């Protein structure tokens, strides 16, 4: 058993267990913390797949920024009396089960009967090279330079907009 496989098993188990923990805990704060765990495990899996950039973005953006936002919202809007989704609407539960089974069957079929490695292995080298930070940075500042600058203005406008709607004093 090589090291890569051991790391994979550890990460996959962490990911799976934290995902189950997230949906079963009644306390939303604990659920959110489990989700952070899940994101970290996913980031590790991306790293194993040689996708360094996505792995780091996963930690900075999802585990960092978005989850902190989630926690803030949960803590600020603390409403214990809120009716539970499933006890209010019973049929949603069956709908969720159907969707879950469908996705699971699809994934199982792909993994065990379709032999995805046949398609994927053709371009492993290419995709490994494309996923490195150097390559993404180079693309970002040459081919995609204009959209990159546009994203800057998009963020500026979004920040100004949020501040105007939330903070501006009316006289």
């Amino acid at each position, binding site marked *: 058993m090589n090291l890569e496989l051991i790391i994979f098993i550890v990460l996959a188990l962490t990911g799976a267990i934290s995902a189950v923990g997230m949906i079963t805990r009644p306390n939303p704060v604990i659920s959110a913390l489990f989700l952070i765990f899940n994101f970290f495990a996913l980031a590790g899996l991306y790293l194993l797949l040689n996708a360094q950039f996505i792995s780091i973005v996963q930690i900075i953006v999802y585990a960092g920024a978005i989850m902190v936002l989630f926690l803030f919202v949960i803590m600020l809007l603390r409403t214990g009396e809120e009716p539970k989704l499933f006890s209010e609407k019973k049929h949603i539960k069956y709908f969720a089960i159907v969707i879950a089974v469908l996705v699971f069957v699809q994934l199982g079929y792909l993994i065990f009967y379709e032999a995805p490695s046949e398609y994927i292995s053709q371009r492993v080298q290419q995709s490994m090279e494309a996923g490195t930070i150097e390559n993404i940075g180079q693309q970002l500042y040459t081919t995609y330079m204009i*959209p990159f600058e546009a994203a800057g*203005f*998009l963020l500026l406008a*979004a920040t100004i*907009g949020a501040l*105007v*709607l939330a903070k501006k004093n*009316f*006289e």
Partner: protein
Amino acid sequence: MPINSSEYLQILPFLILGLGIVISTLFEMYYKNSENFLPWFSAILFLVTGAIALTGLHDQTVLFGGMLAAGGKSAIFHFIFNLGAAIVVMSSVNYLNKYGANFGEYYILLQSSVLGMMMMSAARDIFMIFMGLELMSICFYVLAGINRKKASANEASMKYFLLGAFATGFIVYGIALIYGSAQTTSIDAIVNNFSALTDNVIFIVGFAILLIGFSFKIAAFPFHMWVPDVYQGSATTVTGLMSTTGKAAAFSVLIAIMTAIFSENIPNTFVDYFAALATLSMLFGSIVAIAQDNLKRMLAYSSISHAGYMLIGLSAGNESSVAGIIFYLAAYAFMNLGAFAVISVIEGENDSNTELNAYAGLNSKSPVMAFFMALFMFALAGIPPMAGFFGKYYVFIAAIEADLTWLAVVGVFSSAISVYFYLRVVVYMYFKESEYDFIIQKNNSGMFAVMVSGLLVLVFGILPDTLLTQILSVINY
């Protein structure tokens, strides 16, 4: 791929507007009375940007490795956006002061939204379209709710945001499917292989989903649910911007991604979709508008039916229809902006005086306002010699050339219905006794906006060739 520094000169309108946004932001941060300075700054900025865009009209190139186009159709669109935004700025100052909502940030968001529209119309890559669309939409969501104290403005902003985000989801999903099937996001590559790609089911599905997303943005019939509430609740000047330049930006994207169908030998795969949407939008908008007593709501429904007329052009799918749509968009932009500018001048505090009754006897209170409002109503109804007539005329001619005479007939029928509710406003203004008592503010910069739009509507109406020859000279690229 190295970037040629001379390419920056050709995107000068973008650079100027971008620089303007940064300067305005700094000004807003460090200068206390920025709201007195920024309107003038933005108006001049828009006029300069629009003028520079026009100078590059005949200099068509694709820049930055196929990301942006300069000149041609995009130059005409840039001119429409910037001139429209300048008119909005002029009518905004006095209007926002009525609500105590004259913030410097309003003008920064206005500039950013125009930058987004310019990106949309100049984009040669789906990626770029998406960035521009988001920049425009996010600014619109905020601008719609700029008057935070008003409940209906909050409702409009929230509704627009939720439904707009939903439509964006559709667009992204469509882009994903197109990328998956065409293996590229370059519009030129998609357009050149259009007939080969339309054999692919995934491409067709992706394209249809993309079209649904944009049908929402142009406010066509089955995707119009948000229009009346958002147009009525938002600040009047912002509604003017959303309904004209926002619609023009979405149409510029539709024209760009559908370029293939406008050439002779490629069949229009989506003709049924566009024709159905056009028919439903025209009739629904015109018929429901009859029952409206609020002028903003009436113009919202009229905006749905105008989207229908423009969609006739997309169903026709020939060269004269592109010219027709662009002409229609230019004419519609200025007549609708003018009408909204009049409403913003007449409107009092707390949404008062937007009802039709408030316009009764307007002629005795302000003959100038009544004259221009009548002008815009005639133009919207499509009565010659106003600009609106030629917009409809070119689009209908294009439909007849494409053997879609029935669609043109439906269009004429719908215009005939719409004459009723447009002329009702004129009848109220000239032949009814005044019921309400209100004073129109003197020295109102909104008046100036009204006059400029009125002048443009007349010029485009009496001399339609000035604009049309320019459009025709650049669309054969």
